[in-house]
């Protein structure tokens, strides 16, 4: 179909204000795609949109390369959202940051686009994310690939069902003498596991909402399924578990995102918005993280960098103290560091704030003390104080064919709400994370040649000295990256002209990375007058060139 040229103009005029105004809830994958296209039309001078792949569900995964000039020659930051499909905040933050980077008229921000490149893929799990916008909502992580989640040879034979017809798949509790779950003493809406050793008695069986379609005694064990982006990568991949795929990087989504990043040698850091956390609380080094050639945890020097960046992050984004660092088997942030060899920073971008017991003694009486720091109760109390709506599905009785004559209730904390803040908080989070991205870029590794000197040794013989320095605070190469050929070495070239020759020193040096602010002395003996050129750099830390006149 060929469209009249005015068509796009019309869409532009009509569509743009609509998109801006309509935002009072998270954006569905189609809207994100449309917004990326919108930005492409507006800022074609400083961004390029790429099509990473089309998913099994027919949705596009788009990338935005943002920055002015020759992007692949400047230090780059990759920003990825949607590694967990039910984490709707991730894509919002990623595309929000892209917008800020592109729109800003602030001089500092404009300079950022001169000095660095940003590769932003806002939504890598569009098939899964779509479930939030579907008639039947549930926290879905898998793509549209048909999977046999319980590996019994039958496909999707036992999905969940919306028994209480509220459009959500939540939890069901069944009163049963063998039940292991009991109401929490501080809030009976919340169920906890009874501990028989403490004389506690269970009352409920807890299952996800649905019936046992295949009568195998297991509930909802093989529904739509799909492969989870964040379980399908190579670091600590768990084979033969639901959502992990038949082998690592089995999916179009994972494979093509990886290919996109492998093609960008200049990326020095990856920022992931997803379930793993190392910004509020950094990954820490332990002895044993490196055994022989096997790396199972962050290396010592890289942990220091993680700590430094984490401290900078916490200046911008406040998070509860209870938040701990985390890793996920097969996860993307983990791949970015352990197998892509770049500095990897990851956060969900938001954590449920810590609810504080009122100090007023009368108010305090409304709340029973929570000895086990139960996070569900913390959430419920915070949500109530915030005046949130629809965050809890009251337990309601349903008739259940698999439990005739038994009390079965559907309810619990609504899906999505613990992981995604109310939408009105998103704009502020975008601002703060944009500032963080600016901070991250300003700490980028930057190669410089300083103290360049020439010294006449004898007639026509020159000693040339220079200091190779990393002006940034982040190392030019992570310790992991130093170990393999997916990250370039620092390369120093001494270019001479006809009639000149290098008497001492190499024409080409290849060095491992320099730490933040670290330097390395270089020295050559060159015979013959005239101009020489010293070049230094690597894609991930920029290039520097100095000319020296020998005469």
């Amino acid at each position, binding site marked *: 179909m060929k469209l009249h040229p005015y068509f796009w103009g019309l869409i532009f005029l009509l569509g743009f204000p609509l998109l801006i105004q309509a935002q009072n809830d998270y954006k569905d994958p189609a809207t994100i795609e449309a917004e990326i296209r919108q930005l492409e039309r507006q800022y074609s001078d400083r961004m390029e949109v790429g099509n990473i792949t089309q998913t099994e569900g027919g949705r596009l995964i788009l990338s935005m390369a943002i920055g002015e000039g020759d992007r692949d020659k400047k230090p780059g930051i990759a920003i990825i959202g949607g590694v967990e499909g039910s984490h709707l905040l991730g894509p919002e933050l990623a595309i929000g940051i892209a917008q800020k980077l592109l729109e800003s008229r602030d001089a500092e921000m404009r300079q950022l686009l001169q000095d660095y490149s940003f590769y932003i893929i806002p939504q890598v799990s569009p098939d899964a994310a779509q479930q939030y916008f579907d008639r039947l909502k549930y926290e879905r992580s898998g793509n549209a690939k048909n999977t*046999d989640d*319980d*590996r*019994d*040879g039958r496909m999707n034979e036992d999905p969940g069902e919306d028994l209480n017809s509220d459009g959500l798949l939540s939890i069901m509790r069944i009163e049963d003498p063998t039940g292991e779950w009991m109401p929490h003493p501080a809030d009976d809406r919340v169920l906890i596991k009874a501990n028989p050793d403490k004389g506690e008695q269970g009352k409920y069986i807890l299952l996800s909402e649905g019936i046992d379609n*295949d*009568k*195998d005694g297991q509930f909802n064990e093989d529904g739509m399924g799909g492969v989870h982006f964040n379980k399908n*990568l*190579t670091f600590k*991949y768990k*084979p*033969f578990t639901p959502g992990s795929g*038949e*082998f*690592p*990087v*089995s999916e179009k989504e994972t*494979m093509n995102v*990886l*290919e996109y990043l*492998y093609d960008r*040698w200049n990326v020095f850091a990856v920022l992931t918005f997803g379930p793993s956390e190392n910004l509020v609380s950094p990954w820490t080094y332990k002895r044993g993280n490196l055994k022989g*050639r*096997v*790396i199972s945890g962050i290396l010592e020097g890289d942990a220091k960098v993680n700590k430094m960046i984490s401290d900078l992050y916490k200046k911008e984004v406040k998070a509860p103290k209870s938040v701990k660092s985390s890793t996920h088997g097969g996860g993307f942030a983990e791949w970015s560091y*352990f*197998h892509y060899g770049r500095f990897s920073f990851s956060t969900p971008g938001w954590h449920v704030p810590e609810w504080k017991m009122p100090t007023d003694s009368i108010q305090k009486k409304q709340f029973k003390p929570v000895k086990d720091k139960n996070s569900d109760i913390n959430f419920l109390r915070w949500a109530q104080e915030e005046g949130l709506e629809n965050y809890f599905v009251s337990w309601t009785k349903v008739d259940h064919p698999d439990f005739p004559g038994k009390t079965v209730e559907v309810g619990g904390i609504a899906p999505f709400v613990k992981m995604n803040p109310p939408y009105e908080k998103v704009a502020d989070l975008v601002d703060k994370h944009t500032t963080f991205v600016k901070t991250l870029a300003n700490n980028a590794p930057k190669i410089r040649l300083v103290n360049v000197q020439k010294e006449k040794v004898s007639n026509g013989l020159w000693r040339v000295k220079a200091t190779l320095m990393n002006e940034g605070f982040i190392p030019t190469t992570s310790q*992991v990256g130093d*170990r*393999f*050929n*997916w*990250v*370039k*070495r620092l*390369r120093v070239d001494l270019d001479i002209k006809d009639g000149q020759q290098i008497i001492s020193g*190499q*024409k*080409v040096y*290849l060095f491992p990375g320099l730490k933040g602010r670290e330097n390395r002395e270089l020295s050559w003996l060159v015979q013959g007058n005239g101009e020489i050129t010293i070049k230094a750099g*690597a*894609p991930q830390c920029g290039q520097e060139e100095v000319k020296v006149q020998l005469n």
Partner: protein
Amino acid sequence: MKIQHIILVFIIILGFSPSHSQTPEQLFQAVGTPVNPKVQISWNRYYTAEGLGALAKKLADAHPNLIKVSSIGKSYEGRDLWCLTVTDYQTGQEMEKAAFYIDGNIHSNEIQGAEFGMYTAWYLAESFGNNDFITELLKERVFYILPTINPDARNAYMKGDNTANTPRSGMMPIDDDRDGLFDEDGYDDLNGDGEITQMRRKTSYGQFRANPSNPNRMDRVSGDEMGDYEYLGSEGIDNDGDGRINEDRVGGYYDPNRNWGWGWVPEYTQGGAHKYPFSVPENRAVMEFVMAHPNIAGAQSYHNSGGMLLRGPGAEVDQGSYTRTDIRVYDALGKLGEQLIPGYRYLIVYKDLYSAYGGELDWFHGGRGIFTFSNELFSSFMLFSKQRPNADERDLFNRKLLFEDNFVPWEEYDHPVYGKIEIGGNKRNYGRNDPGFLLESDAHRNMAFTIYHAYQMPKLVIEEVEEKDLGGGLKEITVTVGNQRLIPTHSDHDIKNKINRPDYIRIEGADVVAGMRVLNKDLNQTDEQVYNPSQIEVPNIPGQSTVHVRWIVRSTGDYTIVVDSQKGGVVRK
């Protein structure tokens, strides 16, 4: 082309055309070999990727009911990855027969696996109808034979500037020295003889000395002696002027056999891993083929050299995926292999060689539950029927049996960096790949091992159908299904991880009231299956063993029992 040339070519073509080959009356069969095959192939030389493709097509054209050729995908440079599917197409359905998978040449310099695979296809097809065992085998089994899964670098090995050890990978460019340039400093055929041999230089502080009885041979001096020569590596110059020689060659280092989706680890743990599992396009094509052919129950991936029948695990950490039950099967096959191929030893990769992560056999066994061997073809045992011949014996072989065809005599050369040097040494076709006169014999013995392996894949039979009247219009039907061969329908590792679906034993045409597995027929221990009881799901039919299922049915009409196993085929009664 001049007319004389055309005539000459014509004469040559005529001279080699089949019309001038022997008539059947002029032949007498050597036992064990097809005497007058439809396709004549010389088994004492090697073929390029295109040569193999042409042979595959010839075989398929000559045996349309036995061999079909298809491309399972493309290599990095766009060559077809040819698969010969060999079975008796007039008996049964391909996907309903247990299948045996063979590939070769994953390491591009390890070429003879391709000829061994091709020999297998040829032997099977040419023997069908003449040999009862092979005829029966092709009725029951399918062979998927992929002579080379690395055609690009196979050709590069044969035709490019390479040694016996290069390339090992495929042809994707790799920046080996991490300087930002790709494949910018490879070997150079300095003396223009079509071979990349060694560079040596005279020095009074050398580690080597020419052997007194054979000046071509270099011996390392011992102890406190000083030699006359030093080695300077393979032929080459500093192409990129970075002060190093041959540091970033074409077909640079990645290892297609460290790139599979089971126990994969990154480059820094193991060189050659490449980007992620199946990032090597040829491997990805094989993976997709194997995923689409769950009937594959046994596999062989040919390598060289050293005379080994290797099983996994590749890595010590992966020992858990080889259980005692599975090892019993491997042992039985491996030990017979040692008898069939003198000089070859049955070994375990991590234990007897080194830990190798993410290898092809690991994915086949660990990722897909397929009993897989990897044979390291050609053994020095074959020189004089004794293990580990010494340097003198090797020398004898080279001189008296190869007539020094293996060797480029040392000749002087003026090198831009090293000055006066000499170039010479072994050619690439020496050392790892079978010499011509030993090739067919080695191919035959290895094929025999794969045939035995394929024979031992599950063969299911419905042994017994017992009926018992329960009264009240109900009847009990108990079926015994046997597996007559060594290999189970599911490896133990497969059962634990539910890699492949269960075997289905179903009853068609009966009104089923209930169905169950019979765990112990004598003691009447059963396990009822409530869901879809007419098709009982059996986790495994073990090798040389039986399983039992039972139905309670209402009707008494004719019914059919179907055993439907991915790796054991489909049988009906």
